[in-house]
């Protein structure tokens, strides 16, 4: 089935994402990268290169390597005079003052260039998914006029795509956070990319989006921050060594890379080292660059760039006829918003609002576009958006532990079964105590229900097989069934509303389990130690019974004494794990010894023991009937 994708056609880089099973995913390109440079090159041998490959030969072929086509698309030649100054390729006027790139004697419209990028994204996506990609939602800046939007749509058509819709980048960002599903809110989208800065104020909610205002700086981005580091390092080096590294292509390239790396590191650490051994050489020998850059110094070097974000912000708020206090949600877009200085600024400007950044800021626009594509292509309609169980579900077993049957965050509908058994000899009924929660001790969780299955044939503990099945349907209704595999008897209980707990309650229960994780683990260990000791005691007892007189007297005496000890410890709910484990080991030794004695005489069929059975049989503490 043809897939619909969302494409963030950016000035510097583009991203493509798709909806799969109701969830958006970014698709890597053929080179394995999630970002594709928006660069197209025409080589002298007649080849057309797109993306990273085009970038690699830019220095060789600057007049025929087109980048930032987005700055020209849908605009008139007379409007872009400033932009032309910044690029090495030839820009000329076409019919009706249209913009054309002159490449090796031929004229290309910006839409044709962007179409190459779109084509590569679609082809790579097709290859990755193994399905044809045909339909797309493409994003544009909120300030794009009709001509620019139409030209972008045309680019899609030229690329052979069916453009479902052109949507605004800030709108896409809001979509990816699901803000359209909430009640009406004022959303600020703060987009600081590689080379451009855009601020938008949106009115979002109940499926409706309205752009109230936009502002920005078309030449402010993360690249400017890199450049500050490069200049500072080069100036320091020049002062110390008399050499300007910027004049040496190779040194400059290393420096630029190191500067970008340093900037990224400083978003996580307070200082970093720029290490470039053998960066250059002069008559006195090789020269090295080793410099420490602190976050404080970096922020000082870039403070004015951060301040440049304030003007557009205030303008956008003003144009929307609002004040900072009216902003309900803030969304960060663009890799540069990872910088702490930018986040601090945003908080300062919005009166302390915590921005939304859980979605990767480089990908949030593409993801929103993919969500929109999914809706428009009817995929979201066809795919049932599935729920999950917010908390684990299980039952109470021997010793008061909770044995989970369905883990938390399992997609529903789901069915899980396990086989349990009895805890005591001749137990003829089992009580199924259905629980919900994350803590290992049954008592600490929420009881969903109780029911009992009777009529189990008397047998030693651990022998009967009771299959317990939890079946949760798409609406979250749980049906718990217990079936005696021997008699075929069955009992069940239906519980509704178990997946509809309020979010605070769910969060609290999960938090509790995390807070008590250590002590819970300890308690579980204690319970297991008691269970194991008890079980071992039973086995030895059984073996003694079978052997009767054949059991050596001193062994019997010793065993009985230990069994009594275990009984006492279990009765008093002893938490002495070491003693319990020691007794378990000792009893096991006795068991081996007795088994040796037993094998020396004809013996009746050995009973199947409780522990050491098939993996999925757990001793269950089902209370006795009556």
């Amino acid at each position, binding site marked *: 089935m043809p897939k619909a994708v969302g494409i963030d056609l950016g000035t510097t880089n583009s991203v493509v994402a798709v909806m799969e099973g109701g969830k958006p995913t970014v698709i890597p390109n053929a080179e394995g990268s999630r970002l594709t440079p928006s660069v197209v090159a025409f080589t002298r041998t007649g080849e057309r290169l797109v993306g990273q490959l*085009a970038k*690699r*030969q830019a220095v*060789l072929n600057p007049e025929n390597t087109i980048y930032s086509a987005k700055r020209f698309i849908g605009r008139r030649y007379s409007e872009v005079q400033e932009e032309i100054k910044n690029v090495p390729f030839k820009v000329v006027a076409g019919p009706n003052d249209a913009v054309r790139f002159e490449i090796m004697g031929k004229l290309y419209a910006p839409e044709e260039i962007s179409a190459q990028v779109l084509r590569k994204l679609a082809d790579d996506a097709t290859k990755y*998914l*193994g399905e044809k990609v045909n339909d797309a939602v493409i994003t544009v800046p909120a300030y794009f006029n009709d001509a620019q939007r139409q030209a972008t749509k045309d680019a899609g058509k030229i690329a052979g795509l069916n453009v479902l819709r052109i949507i605004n980048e800030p709108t896409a960002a809001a979509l990816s956070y699901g803000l359209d599903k909430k009640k009406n809110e004022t959303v600020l989208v703060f987009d600081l990319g590689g080379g451009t800065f855009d601020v938008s104020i949106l009115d979002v909610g109940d499926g409706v989006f309205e752009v109230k205002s936009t502002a920005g700086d078309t030449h402010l981005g993360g690249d400017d921050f890199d450049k500050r580091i490069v200049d500072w390092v080069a100036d320091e080096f020049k002062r110390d060594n008399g050499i300007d590294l910027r004049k040496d292509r*190779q040194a400059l390239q290393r420096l630029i890379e190191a500067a970008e790396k340093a900037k990224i590191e400083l978003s996580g650490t307070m200082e970093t080292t720029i290490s470039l051994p*053998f960066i250059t050489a002069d008559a006195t020998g090789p020269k090295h660059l080793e410099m420490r850059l602190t976050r404080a110094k970096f922020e000082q070097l870039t403070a004015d760039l951060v301040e440049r974000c304030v003007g557009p912000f205030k303008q956008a708020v003003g144009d929307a006829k609002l004040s900072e206090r009216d902003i309900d949600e803030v969304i960060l877009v663009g890799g540069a918003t990872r910088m702490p200085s930018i986040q601090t600024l945003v908080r300062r400007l919005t009166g302390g609002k915590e921005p939304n950044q859980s979605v990767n800021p480089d990908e949030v626009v593409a993801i929103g576009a993919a969500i929109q594509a999914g809706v428009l292509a009817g995929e979201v309609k066809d795919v049932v958006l599935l729920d999950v169980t917010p908390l684990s579900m299980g039952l109470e077993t021997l010793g008061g532990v909770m044995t989970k049957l369905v883990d938390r965050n399992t997609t529903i509908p789901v069915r899980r079964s396990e086989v349990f058994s009895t805890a005591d000899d001749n137990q003829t009924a089992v009580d199924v105590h259905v629980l919900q929660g994350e803590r290992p001790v049954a008592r600490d969780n929420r009881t969903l229900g109780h029911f009992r299955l009777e009529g189990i044939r008397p047998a030693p503990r651990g022998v009967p097989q009771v299959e317990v099945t939890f079946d949760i349907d798409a609406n979250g209704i749980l049906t718990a069934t217990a079936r005696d595999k021997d008699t075929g008897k069955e009992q069940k209980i239906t519980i509704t509303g178990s997946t509809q707990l309020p979010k605070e309650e769910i969060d609290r229960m999960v938090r509790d389990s995390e807070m008590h994780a250590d002590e819970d683990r300890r308690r579980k260990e204690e319970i297991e130690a008691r269970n194991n000791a008890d079980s071992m005691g039973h086995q030895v007892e059984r073996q003694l019974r079978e052997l009767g007189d054949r059991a050596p007297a001193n062994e019997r005496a010793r065993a009985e004494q230990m069994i009594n000890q275990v009984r006492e410890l279990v009765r008093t709910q002893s938490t002495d794990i070491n003693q319990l484990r020691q007794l378990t080991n000792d009893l096991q030794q006795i068991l081996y010894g007795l088994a040796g004695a037993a094998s020396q005489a004809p013996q009746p069929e050995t009973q199947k023991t409780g522990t050491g059975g098939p993996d999925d049989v757990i001793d269950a503490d089902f209370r006795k009937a009556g």
Partner: protein
Amino acid sequence: MAEKTIETLEQDLKTEHAMYLRALADFDNYRRRIDRDRAKFGTEALRDFMSELLDVVDDLERFLNSVGEEASPLIDGVRFVHQKLLSLLEKEGVRPFESVGKPFDPSLHEVISTVAAKDTAEGTVVREARHGYKFKGDILRPARVVVAR
């Protein structure tokens, strides 16, 4: 009346069944992709680490270039360290590839500058500023080259 209901139900059943099959198919495709991705993922993390390590190999080579043919126990020692590093990388499938003298290929090379070279064909790699490396046959890091104009 009942006829109509049966018809509607049959239609619904057909639709539901189709959706079910589609879900199964999507799941199957997804699972196959996950398997494919999982095999790649381990390699992905390794690739990132290898790339960073190559920067350090570069630095060692810069040192060796700056001492040229000079010999001394100290320099020899560094030469051995460099060799050891290259052997380790080779064992993992990381190998440098030759670029000088070859025609420029953007899938293998990144142009850092151009030079006028009278006796070399235009577009030929004249010098390497940084070695290129492949990882199990796939390009790991393009070579940074100077190309003849």
